[in-house]
């Protein structure tokens, strides 16, 4: 069982790195969807486990929500938004891709280094799943920084959320249910608002290149 989870966590990390290496909006969304699927599988696994062990449906419900939200609705929304605003592919990152990937690896090492000191996470050996999940958070964050366009930020944010969610599920088997629900509501609202803003930005600035938004300085 643990092996599968380990595998899934590694796969998820891989998707995050894949994301960093992509150049096109379409591939961002696709990769994100792939990652969401993986998360849903992880949640499904854990949900089954907790159903069997404790008789709790919480995680399964959340799993369903993930499928609905992250696999279906959000990618669709993103597609729709960005289909409206822009279609052109251009170089939209500050550093070139190999360096970005290398830095992602550094982040993985870094999260291993920092997490290895925390004994509660690591029963005897370092908890691989948490390290991987945590790395996803950092990579998601890093992705936000490295992409110039608004879509990059949204996707990065979503990847961070994914990472956080997986971290939560790996380390504590999920948060209190009400909190989880709240988190999801917030998240979807955030993405919606961001989407709306992207449209507005595109209206006002004729581009979604966030790098153009530099009037407010100093």
């Amino acid at each position: 069982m643990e092996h599968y989870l380990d595998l899934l966590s590694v796969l998820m990390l891989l998707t995050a790195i894949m994301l960093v290496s992509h150049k096109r909006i379409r591939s961002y969304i696709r990769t994100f969807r792939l990652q969401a699927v993986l998360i849903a599988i992880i949640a499904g696994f854990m949900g089954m486990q907790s159903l069997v062990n404790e008789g709790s449906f919480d995680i399964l419900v959340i799993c369903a929500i993930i499928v609905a939200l992250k696999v279906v609705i959000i990618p669709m929304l993103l597609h729709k938004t960005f289909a409206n605003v822009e279609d052109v592919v251009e170089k939209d990152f500050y550093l070139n891709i190999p360096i970005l990937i290398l830095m992602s690896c550094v982040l993985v090492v870094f999260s291993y280094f920092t997490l290895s000191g925390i004994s509660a996470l690591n029963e005897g050996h370092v908890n691989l799943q948490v390290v991987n999940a945590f790395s996803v958070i950092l990579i998601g964050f890093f992705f936000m920084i490295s992409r110039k366009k608004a879509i990059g930020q949204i996707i990065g944010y979503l990847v961070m959320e994914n990472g956080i969610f997986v971290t939560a599920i790996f380390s504590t088997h999920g948060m209190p249910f009400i909190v989880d629900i709240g988190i999801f509501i917030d998240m979807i609202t955030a993405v919606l608002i961001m989407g709306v803003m992207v449209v507005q930005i595109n209206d006002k600035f004729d581009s979604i290149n966030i790098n153009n938004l530099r009037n407010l300085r100093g």
Partner: protein
Amino acid sequence: MGMFESDSLLGITIVIYLTAAAAALIFCSRQRISILLTQGLCMLAGISGAASAIVFLMSKNTPYSLDLFLSPIPYLSLSVTFDGLSAFFLLILSILVFSVSLYSMGYLAHYVGKRNICIYQVLCILFILSMLLVFVAGNSILFFMAWEVMAVASYFLVVFESEEKETRKAGLIYIVMTHISAALILVALMIMYQYTGSFDLSHSSSAIPQNIKNIIFLLFLIGFGTKGGIAPLHVWLPRAHPAAPGPVSALMSGVMIKTAVYGLLRFVLDYLGVATPWWGYILLALGIFSAVMGVLYAFISKNIKRMLAHSSVENMGILFIGLGIVLVSTAAGAKEVGALALMATLLHCFFHAIYKGSLFLSVGSIHWATHTKNMEELGGLIKKMPVTAVLCLGGALSIAALIPFSGFISEWLLYQSIFSSFVLGQAGLNILLIITAAALAMAAALSSGAMIKLFGISFLGRPRTVHAESAVEVPVVMNIAIGVLVTLSLLFGLFPRLAVNLFGGIVAHLQGVSIGNRLSGNFLVLSFPLQINSNTLSPGLALVMCGGVILIVLVALRCIGGKYTKRVVGTWDCGFKTLTPRMQYSGRAFSKPLKIVFRIFITSTRELKREGEALYHPTSIEYNVKTESALEKYIYLPFIRGVSAMSEKLKFMIQTGSVHAYLLYIFIAVLILMLYNRMD
């Protein structure tokens, strides 16, 4: 606690001030009544404040404490401690408040209907009250609070006539410098607190190690030095004092800059105690520098108020010299010499407040009557404003340290204390001391030159412009107010024992030795260990002698030359058609020789505009000279420009406008914190 005890009088004083503020607010719309009532109350408060101080000083009272208000917020309670030093400065304040309020009754008349007198008066009272609290604060937090309120209130008063750009600039420089200096004072107070665990000023400072004391001293020096306008921290003073309305300038120059002396006496001499002589050396060096620089700039100023402001810098320098000698001799254990120097310092502080007040009020009157502060536009005022002229001459003689006015007394005592401190006998110190004496002498000579310029150019000769031509004498209350101060200056000049006796207790308290028996005699007879014969001074007798001589001369002339006859004709014009007022020596020309001599301290840019074809017969010539302080040009301006350029640059480097950079900051913060956690 009787009615005429010092503490109840102090309470009454504060209450009267508050009432005055209330009166100003209540009669806001009826300006004339409000002026009469408020200024009248302030005069009353001045009297009661002076009474409180004098009662205390006469009765050799022991210090007492009062709690005005106990705040629920920690450390903010208003508790007052009143001792000799407080009484001394309260006396200065009260005398000036009395006179300035009387003066304001006339002066404010030309604000009626034009300006918000209500705010002006409230600010004035706030200013006065805050100074009062500075002098009587029993703990350093209250001291600091009062100090800050004083700074802010005076700032508002400085920019009260804010139409002119210069005024606003002056106010800005003032508030910035004063606030930064206040921060240094606060740092010093906090360090003191850290070691002693108390803000109480009567607490012992023995817990503070010597090296920390040195740091505290330096902080106080910069902090108080800025407030006192000590060169090279004085740049605000010559701008701010002239910008303020006349009565306020008098208060600022008379009292506010003395808070620096108070601070140094209170915190350095009284609280920290003096252990190393180099504190005194620094004070001496700064004092010399300020005295010479101040008077030099006073001499070359053409703005009459600015001249007086520069002269305040000079006098602060002299006070610092006095304090320096106090510290040096105290550190060397020569308590008596220290006591003499302290007496000289206190007297100079007292006298300077009085005569500088009178001078500022006099030039305030000139401004009132002519609407100009530029002496090149004045002239011949002695005929238009005869009373003001006499009063101003009194002030000028006082500040030039000439007999029979009080300025000479303190200067003489200061010379004597420098002279006596040669007894300490260290060669290095002696050289510093002789240079100090020389600088003091030069400052005195230059200051008398500056006063010749001030009085000669603005009151004598012929009116240079229509401003001066159309001047009329100011209302009599204003002249009475100045007259009170000039009379006091004359009184103490003739009978210095009065002041010496009054302040002897303070000196005895601070230095632990009484110099009463060494400063004896009807006038001033000084006998010190160094001297085989006492040095004596009797300005009164000298005056009597001069008077006698004049009488004899009058008689003799009558006998030899017969009746005095005179012929009134025009001034000799070398046969030239007629002299015009413009041919008189101008103020700028007057000070030009010394300006050339001291050109390394004064940078000036000149501009000559000439129109017309012929070389020797231009149709018009315009000559402009702009004088700048070398200090400002080469130190202050580059520093300010540097700071603002740095801020400007960093601003865009940090807040780039790029959301990616912002996210990066957060990212780095997270990574660093994670590392911190790992390493901790």
